[in-house]
């Protein structure tokens, strides 16, 4: 099972990086989303894999490591906030520049006052 999960994490990372290397904001954001999936899983498995061992005290032992789960919760929420922000920025960039390329051109640099 560990191997499968590792492969999943690797795949998500690779897909995330590949998409993040695209030239338009939307696929880049999707790529970052994939990357965050990979990260969350990676963080989660730092507590190792367990089956049917939800860390609810009172249910039969053993318990999965609850700490990484709590950390992943935090990470999920944070990455949601970040995705939301970059999304509105992508919209703003597209609406104000008329295209959604992610690369900056030297010429437009610093026109903001």
């Amino acid at each position, binding site marked *: 099972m560990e191997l499968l999960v590792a492969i999943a994490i690797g795949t998500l990372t690779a897909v995330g990086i590949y998409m*993040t290397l695209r030239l338009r*904001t939307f696929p*880049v*954001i999707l790529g*970052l989303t994939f*990357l*965050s999936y*990979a*990260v*969350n899983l*990676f*963080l989660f*498995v*730092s*507590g*190792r894999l367990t089956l049917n061992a939800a860390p609810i005290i009172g249910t039969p032992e053993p318990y999965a490591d609850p*700490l*990484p789960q709590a*950390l992943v919760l*935090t*990470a999920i929420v*944070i*990455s949601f*906030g*970040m995705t939301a*922000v*970059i999304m509105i*920025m*992508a919209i*703003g*960039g597209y609406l*104000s*520049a008329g295209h959604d390329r*992610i690369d*900056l051109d*030297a010429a*437009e*640099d*610093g*026109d*903001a*006052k």
Partner: protein
Amino acid sequence: MSHWIIAPVALPALVAALMVIGLRGQLSLQRIASLATILALNAVAVALLWSATLHGSEAYFLGDWPAPFGIVLVLDRLSALMVALLALLALISTLYAIGSSWDAKGAHFHPLLMFLLMGIGGAFLTGDAFNLFVFFEVLLIASYGLMIHGGGAARTRAGIQYVAFNLVGSSLFLFALALLYGVTGTLNMADLAQKLPTLPEGDTALLRVAAVMLILVFAIKGALVPLQFWLPGTYANSPGVVAAMFAVMTKIGAYATLRAGTLIFPESLPATGPLLQDLIQPAALVTLLVGAVGVLGANTLPRLAAFAGIASMGTAFLAISAFTPQTTAAALYYILHSTLATAALFLVADLVTRHRAHLRLTETAPAIAQSGLISALYMAAAVAIAGMPPLSGFIGKLLILDAFRDQAPLVWSVVLVSSFLMILGLARAGSLVFWKASALDPDPDEPVREPLAFAATFAALTLLAALTVLAGPITGWLTDTANSLADPAAYIAANKLGAGQ
């Protein structure tokens, strides 16, 4: 004293919440609240500095849970120093924001600023590796909002890159933390410091990877080559006052590196040894050169300031990378200096920017209003950032050169050549922006507009002068700080590890 440790986090959060609830659309009240909070933060920072100097390291056990199980804040000389620097810079930036009406160019400037302060303060104070991540994110997301404050195509698009790159950085941070927890089973930094020396041999490779990934995260924040690409576009397109505030944000990377390198992965740790030094030092040297070349080659004034910022980070990381008390003291002095100097340069660049038709350094533009005053400020800021006397940059440079006498040929030549390139670049830009422009269009004598903005810029430069004059006592204090970092026993002891067993 102990509850004051949380004040740099709780106070801005509370004020921001109140602003969002009750002061929306009431800019003048928000300004008053912001200034009052920041003044209070300065007072708290002084108290914390005082406490750390008198009593050494002190931990604050959040939720009353013992370390390493709960989250601790640790006040030591270093964190107190960084909080004080933050508070000072916040004061300057806020005054400038008010004076220049930057804060009126969009919604929520002040709450975002408060949250930014909360995030940075939290990052400086935390003694927990994952909590550091959380507060990194707090400060980052606040910075995203501030960076795009005011809008505009270039700024927004630059913001996208900034966010995207930092999201990759945050991912890396989490990979590193997960690995660290997966290998060691703990997140408390003092606990890590205590446990790592007995790490089984077979785990060292993974630990080293975690360490390197962690440091590279900090390197992203600190714009270390080749992770600096996000910085020029971001800073050059940020509102000037935000870019000034960012001067302390890059320092968080430096701070965290210093903390990790002295506390968690000291050279004495068998698993990592000189890993950090070997990683950072070459990168820092290249960063310094890239920044300096950028100062000479920048095509706009804000970009020039951004590259100056990169160069200053190269210098700071260089000083950090040796992890000896002497270099650390030099690094700390340089961090104080370069934060204020970079901020001053950005503020000056903003003064120019907002009075000018275009910003390109490749051609002349009409003269700017109030150019006499602005050019004097520019001169001072340029002198500071280039490390010329009489401002503190020169002393910082001397301290670093002196501390690196063992590696003189390489380090000295890079530092000095970079200084040379920066002098060339700054002189070139200044001559073009101020002399050549006013030659075309001599500026009339006019009264000072936006006096608060000028005063804020001047204040930053005055602080640099103070840093110069008081270099003796300050470096003395910093040397003690560096010594305490070199021997983290007190820091670890403050965590009272094992009290909860």
